[in-house]
């Protein structure tokens, strides 16, 4: 069995009275691509910054490659931030030279490595232009180049497809997949489900300050789609009868969702609705397993959380800066 790249246990973090993480348990194995999903403001960036050692936990344990002190591991970790803020006054190559030196590279090895990563991310001749002239996509590329420059064992990536066009997103996904195949562990934070489906081996959903559900992407793909039956009004007796059919059946007053679906379960639900004379408006094969997994996790997590989550990451950061 592969060893742990990231391990957290009962990880808690608050900003003043605002509890952002309420006991996060996470295990990322070496060599896998692990996708962290979650709504805006769920604390994904906070979790990443805790793993990177930029934030200090209130409670709980964080170990990266079995070590708690992250400064010792900085040569083994690469980080691609969500917002592509880089030093505009430098060319891409100058920037990479500096970051390479900060990571302990030097001489011919550094320059060879820079040429390699420039080729890898497809920056080409733009590497000799000032970063201030770069488009958002090119900034994302220079960001990835700096993150992998020192050949880290663990790559922490925050919204890698942010600001990229569909072709760029696909290319970024392929790049990350290539890196994973060469032995890198990748911890990626995103809210793009298509990206997760294409890229990740395992995923978890952070909501209400906890990772409420984890799953392998392959297992979700095997589960297929959900089906939603839209109704005019669901009587209480029917709802009770549907509940008895199993946890795969969820409902509210205007719809019944079956996930994971099966012919037998669909037939049983339809029979119950027809028997109770419930008017069916539509039967919609609505979401794939991944989407449904995410929606269920968010629904369950929000129901379990007692305090409301902050509206967005930006709001949270603004609050923190003002508090400071």
């Amino acid at each position, binding site marked *: 069995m592969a060893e742990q790249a990231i391990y957290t246990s009962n990880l808690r973090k608050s900003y003043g009275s605002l509890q952002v993480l309420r006991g996060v348990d996470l295990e990322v194995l070496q060599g896998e691509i692990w996708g962290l999903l979650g709504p805006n403001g769920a604390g994904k960036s906070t979790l990443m910054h805790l793993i990177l*050692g*930029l934030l*200090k936990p209130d409670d709980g344990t964080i170990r990266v490659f079995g070590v708690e002190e992250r400064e010792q591991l900085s040569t083994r970790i690469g*980080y691609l*931030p969500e917002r592509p803020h880089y*030093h505009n*006054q430098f060319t891409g190559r100058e920037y990479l030279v500096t*970051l390479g030196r900060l990571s*302990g590279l030097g001489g011919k090895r550094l320059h060879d490595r820079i040429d390699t990563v420039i080729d890898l991310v497809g920056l080409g001749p733009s590497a000799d232009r000032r970063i201030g002239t770069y488009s958002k996509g090119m900034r994302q590329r220079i960001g990835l180049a700096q993150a992998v420059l020192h050949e880290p064992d663990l790559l922490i990536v925050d919204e890698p497809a942010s600001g990229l066009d569909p072709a760029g997103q696909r290319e970024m996904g392929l790049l990350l997949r290539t890196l994973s195949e060469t032995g890198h562990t990748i911890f990626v934070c995103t809210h793009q489900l298509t990206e997760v489906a294409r890229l990740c081996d395992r995923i978890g959903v952070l909501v209400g300050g906890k990772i409420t559900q984890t799953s392998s992407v392959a297992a979700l793909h095997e589960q297929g789609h959900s089906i939603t039956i839209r109704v005019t009004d669901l009587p209480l007796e029917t709802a009770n009868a549907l509940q008895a059919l199993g946890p795969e059946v969820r409902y509210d007053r205007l719809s019944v969702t079956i996930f994971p679906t099966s012919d037998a379960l669909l037939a049983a639900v339809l029979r119950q609705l027809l028997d109770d004379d419930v008017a069916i408006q539509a039967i919609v094969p609505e979401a794939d397993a991944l989407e449904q997994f995410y929606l269920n996790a968010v629904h369950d997590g929000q129901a379990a959380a007692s305090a409301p989550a902050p509206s967005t990451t930006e709001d949270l950061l603004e609050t923190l800066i003002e508090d400071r």
Partner: protein
Amino acid sequence: MFALRRLWTFTRFTLTEYIRSGRIIVELVAVILFWGLFLREWTIGSEQFFSLTGIFTLLMALYTTAALLSLGERPQGYVMLTRPLGRTGYLLGLYFVALIVVLTMFAVVSALTITFNRPFDFLWNEFFMSVVPLLLNVALLSSLIVLLSALVLPNVMRLFLLAVLAIALYSQAWHLSPVYRFIEPLQSLFSWPLYPAMAGFKLATSRDWTGGGYYIPLAQLALTVLLISLALISFKRRDVILRNQ
């Protein structure tokens, strides 16, 4: 050794950015204006030169250190901080760039003055004897600004330290106030850490190193090391939350 090399790499990088971004124009304009207004035409002695430049370099240290710390508070810092440079190298790098900029500006003012309007009692050996306490005061003030920055201390601690400084510095005005007798013991207590800075300024202008004068630069240096060490300890223990642009 590797840590020093990384620190130098980051210092050089930040200094280059400070120059390329044009921020250094503020200091250059200030130097030219200061020299043109105070040192270009009037007949001056070395004491006047060091009194004027002593105050000017402190004001410049205040501005430049604050400007460098605001550079360090940008989200660009996250990528640097996750490198082996670490928090210590990051904060020291910003501090050293501030010192390099102010020292360079002092060198420019000195060169202009020595070339075009040399003080009537100018002697090279005395010049260098005055430069030492003057520049140590720059290092001391910069380290205090670093310690008082939002990057390093929480707001409550910063306000507390500023209040302490206010009590220590505003003793003359408070003599007239009825609350002075309550403040006086505090003022006596809080003003002693300022002694090396005050004595250093006096030493730079008087160039009188007799009677234990050689201990003053040592005291300045010790206080500088103490302040920067406190800043590093606090920064290492804090959450790093950089401002969005």
